[in-house]
């Protein structure tokens, strides 16, 4: 092993630590913004933006109770699995102009697989809790996973396929490529409609993936008292809170990268470090906007759906919208 490759590996490890830290901090910060915005829309003052941090630190010093019926090592391992997998996705996400840390080692298909793992962690945790509420929550989470997967995959495949037609040489499923070539620039009028439909499908999948109202049946506070998380407390619950925060970043980033990968640095004729800073900041502004419309706005404007309604909504209307979008994209390529 040469010195340079060692240097690269150390660099990657340092980068991973920095990204994990930043991802968690920014995720919690966005959660605070989300709560504040929701509160303002509900005619409340709402908690301070640093509230998720306070919650996290408080949970960390609280007692960590493992129920008698639970299997301790799985019960304690589930939150770690969830957090680690959701942070791993962060390493594959480009931010503005900055390429992803692990670019070249995986693509969006891997991300889709990784996205299921935090949910799997929660399901395992729910089932081993030994509480009927958690078991019902875990069953519902499984149904949810099976439901939203199809529209999510449809969206990604459609975009990747379109890019493969326009840029045959590049690695189309890599997020860096998707980030470099906005979908809107490579399609005609039909494809434009298709892309709008796909965006809509992804926008509805996002609150489902994040278990937010109206798709929060697995946690359903008033029905299942927290569902999957009902037996979790202290450190384990804090880890699940972090997972939720990181997942929020991941899902909103995915929307931004797939549909709005525009940068603004060249408008100000900036380059070098300044361009990186401006583009990264712009990226985070886009995240807030996407979060507002996909998560906050929807969750204050709807009632919680029942699990059969959720599943129907994803399998029939949203899947149809996704497939319709795919058809339009294909038509666009065939006709043009």
């Amino acid at each position, binding site marked *: 092993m040469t010195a340079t490759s060692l240097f690269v590996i150390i660099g990657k490890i340092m980068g991973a630590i920095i990204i994990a830290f930043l991802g968690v901090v920014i995720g919690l910060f966005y959660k605070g913004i989300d709560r504040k915005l929701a509160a303002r*829309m*509900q*005619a*409340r003052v709402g908690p301070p933006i640093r509230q998720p941090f306070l919650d996290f630190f408080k949970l960390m010093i609280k007692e960590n109770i493992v129920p008698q019926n639970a299997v301790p090592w799985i019960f304690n391992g589930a939150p770690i699995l969830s957090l680690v997998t959701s942070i791993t996705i962060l390493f594959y996400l480009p931010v503005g102009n900055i390429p992803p840390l692990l670019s070249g080692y995986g693509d969006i298909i891997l991300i889709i697989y990784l996205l299921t793992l935090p949910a799997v962690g929660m399901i395992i945790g729910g089932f081993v809790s030994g509480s*009927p*509420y958690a*078991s*019902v929550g875990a*069953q519902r989470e499984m149904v949810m996973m099976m439901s939203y997967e199809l529209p999510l995959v449809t969206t990604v495949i459609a975009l990747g396929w379109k890019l493969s037609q326009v840029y045959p040489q590049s690695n189309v499923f890599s997020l860096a490529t998707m980030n470099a070539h906005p979908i809107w620039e490579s399609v005609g009028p039909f494809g434009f409609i298709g892309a709008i439909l796909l965006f809509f499908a992804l926008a509805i999948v996002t609150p489902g993936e994040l278990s937010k*109202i*109206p798709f*929060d*049946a697995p946690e*359903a*506070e*008033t*029905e*299942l*008292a927290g569902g999957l998380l009902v037996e979790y407390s202290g450190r384990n619950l804090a880890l699940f809170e972090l997972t939720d925060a990181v997942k929020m970043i991941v899902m909103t980033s995915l929307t931004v990268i797939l549909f709005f990968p525009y940068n603004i640095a060249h408008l100000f004729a900036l380059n070098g470090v300044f361009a990186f800073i401006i583009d990264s900041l712009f990226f985070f502004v886009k995240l807030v906007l996407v979060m507002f419309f996909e998560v906050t706005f929807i969750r*204050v*404007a*709807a*009632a*919680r*759906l*029942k*699990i*059969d*309604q959720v599943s129907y909504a994803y399998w029939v209307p949203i899947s149809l919208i996704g497939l319709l979008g795919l058809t339009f994209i294909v038509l666009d390529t065939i006709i043009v």
Partner: protein
Amino acid sequence: MSKMTYSVPIGPVHPSLKEPMTFNFKIYGEHIEEVCLAPGDNHRGIEFMGMQRNPVQIIYLAERICGICSASHPFAFCKAVENAAGIEVPERGQYIRVIIAELERIHSHILWAGVAAHELGFDSVLYLSWKAREVVLDTLEILSGNRINYGIFMIGGVRRDISTEQVSAIRKTINYYREVYGKIEDIFLNDPTIALRTKKVGILTEEDALRLCAVGPTARASGIKKDVRQDQPYSAYADLKVKAITPDVFTGEVNGDVYDRIVVRLLELVQSLEIIEQCLDNLPSGEIVAEKKLVKLLNQLKRVKGRGVGRHEAPRGECIHSVKLEEAETPEVWKARAPTYNNLMTWVPMLLGQQIADIPIVIASIDPCIACMDRVTILNKDTGQKNVLTKKDLHELSVQKTRRITP
């Protein structure tokens, strides 16, 4: 193949319940196969406490049976004592009683609407409707000095008069609700997610409602035109011609589901506004209470021998109080029967066959008041364990008591 069911307990403490009460469900998948109710977690022995006090003191105790029914219970209790003692309430007192009772109905129904929205996970509506509720609470504070326990009822009338400024404050409140009502109705009756969760959910057929003696909005939503204010008009209601509201007025059909119960309560809101307005327009002048001097009143009640029953249409349904006065300072018997007691068993046909997700909204849909309803708990003195008495046990006990008291 036999179904593999599992049991899910809800309560005594659960986020969907506002008061302690236990439910045991047998669930198959997401569907409810069996419902078992186990009340008795909120018994405070209020009736026993009342029987150690004189009737005027009981009014304040009755007010505190439940926070939301703090006009209904004293109203029914005062009527029961007046019935036993033959006291006639002056007309102005009767009108003020009705105004307070209807303001309470507005506050109770808006509170319920907020709770129902919260059970559905629609917290925005909870905050918006509870914000609207503040106005009626402020009005009640202007009238009585208190937001919740009004302390305005007195045997033979009311304790406080309504002045001209207070009348204009009430009119302002009525106008405010006329303005916001359209918004509230739009949110509840036209929102697609609320419709998805409430239509064809928790159905109570007219037959079941009659069989289980449902009362109040629960019965009316199933199409039974049952309302004490209409059937046996009392106080100022006798002048007002109140009509029981059924959901077909609005939707054209009666389904008896949760949506219908929302419709009935929202329409009753408008009805209450009209009643208050009519009361203010026709507010007679004169005395507000039959006997101003409390000592004289108590002496008068001390000489009474007889039974009295008072009925009032509380926001949740018919509330009955019964007293037996035996020429003593304290009543021999005081019995309160809150509307939730009747509506309790309607949960069983409503919940059977529904999903777990429907439990909170169906439970909330009858607007349960466990504090009102929990009037008796049977404990084994030696072991401290709760006992359940069946119909047969109760019959045996009453036979024993009859033998004991008849010489």
